[in-house]
């Protein structure tokens, strides 16, 4: 698809506009555009198109109160694929239910009609991992180049002196972070990435129930989460990497965040 250095083809112009070129190639295309006004004009036109389209549909990226209900309704229509006893057992396994607060995500699928549904820290961590690490353009709200601001901002929302772990010894560098709800309260997501583009996330959230746990591992397919609770703060490290590698990351986070 990408042509040899020196020439820039239409595919390069598309990839340039869509932010899909690596830095080196990007610079080459930029240089090309300086001397090829017709291509520069196309690029400007397509970029403006992209922005206008994104802006039009941005407002549709919303969750609605009825979404959980929609899932429940649809799964009921599937009949007895998932039986009640299995669901009850699943609910019993959600050990962080009690700790992780009131206003959390309502999971209608496991909820008895009147009862509160639960989403464990590990599940929230996994959902956040799946959603945000697959974002190409906007994986984080605040990027790593504003580390101090990121730590101060998220720390303030969490009411906790947040230290951003340095995972460079393990080959991971900080991509950035964002604010997200954890157990219905403001929480922090930090994202890291290694040279191969493999991403992992760290979630830090408030735990209403004061207690401590050891490290626990939660596995769902290739996605693993190590999580632990330390007093009023819960931590979860999630990645699509082998358990021993993830454990090393969790150990490192624990060590560094304890020092904070």
């Amino acid at each position, binding site marked *: 698809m990408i042509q040899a250095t020196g020439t820039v083809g239409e595919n390069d112009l598309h990839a340039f506009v869509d932010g899909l070129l690596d830095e080196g190639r990007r610079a080459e295309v930029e240089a090309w555009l300086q001397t090829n006004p017709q291509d520069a004009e196309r690029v400007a036109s397509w970029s403006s*198109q992209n922005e206008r389209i994104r802006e039009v549909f941005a407002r549709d990226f919303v969750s609605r109160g009825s979404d959980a209900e929609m899932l429940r309704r649809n799964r009921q229509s599937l009949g007895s694929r998932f039986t009640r006893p299995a669901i009850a057992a699943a*609910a019993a396994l959600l050990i962080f239910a009690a700790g992780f607060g009131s206003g959390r995500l309502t*999971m209608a699928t496991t909820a008895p009609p009147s009862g509160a549904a639960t989403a464990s820290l590990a*599940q929230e961590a996994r959902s956040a991992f799946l959603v945000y690490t697959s974002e190409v353009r906007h994986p984080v709200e605040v990027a790593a180049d504003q580390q101090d601001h990121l730590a101060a901002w998220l720390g303030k929302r969490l009411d906790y002196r947040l230290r951003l772990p340095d995972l460079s010894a393990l080959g991971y560098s900080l991509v950035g972070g964002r604010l997200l709800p954890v157990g219905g309260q403001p929480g922090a997501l930090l994202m890291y990435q290694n040279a191969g583009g493999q991403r992992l996330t760290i979630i830090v959230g408030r735990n209403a129930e004061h207690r401590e746990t050891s490290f626990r591992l939660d596995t769902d397919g290739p996605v693993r989460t190590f999580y632990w609770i330390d007093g009023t703060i819960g931590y979860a490290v999630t990645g699509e990497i082998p358990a021993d590698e993830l454990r090393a990351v969790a150990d490192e986070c624990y060590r560094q965040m304890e020092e904070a």
Partner: protein
Amino acid sequence: MPHGPDDGAAAASFEEALLALVPGLRRYSRSLTRTDADGEDLLQDCVEAALARRAQWRGANLRSWAFTIMTNLFRNRYRAMMRRPTAAIEEAEQVALADDDGDPLERTRIRAALEALTPDYRTTLMLVVVEGYSYQETADMMRVPIGTVMSRLSRARHQLASRLAQDNIVPLRRSK
């Protein structure tokens, strides 16, 4: 560990992850369809299909998997729709539904231009531009060679540009 509870927990976390993907799926469905109602319909069909096909999910990337399901549903639905007479009155409804978020005229203009694209061109453009997928990922999701993605993208952009140029109105940039 006993088999049952494990299945239940997996089902619960799957649905949790799917629920988290709903906003993105909603945006994608809306970017493909003509009206808000059609968008919600497509979204519901997609959620239903994803739940029904949970066993087929190989645990890799749930987002791509769900987006692929919607892509296929849209393609099938569009084919079915072509066999029914369509009402041309819907543009008016869209103006009436205009919201306080953004310029309603701009929305109508972009939407009308997108309506003129063939479904495959539109899908390609939306996966790349709005959803941020790479060309290879888009090719995988649409089950076409990457060259086809590039040519669709190119034609979509050219058609859109000439369509928008006909409007001859420079959109004001909304301040954020």
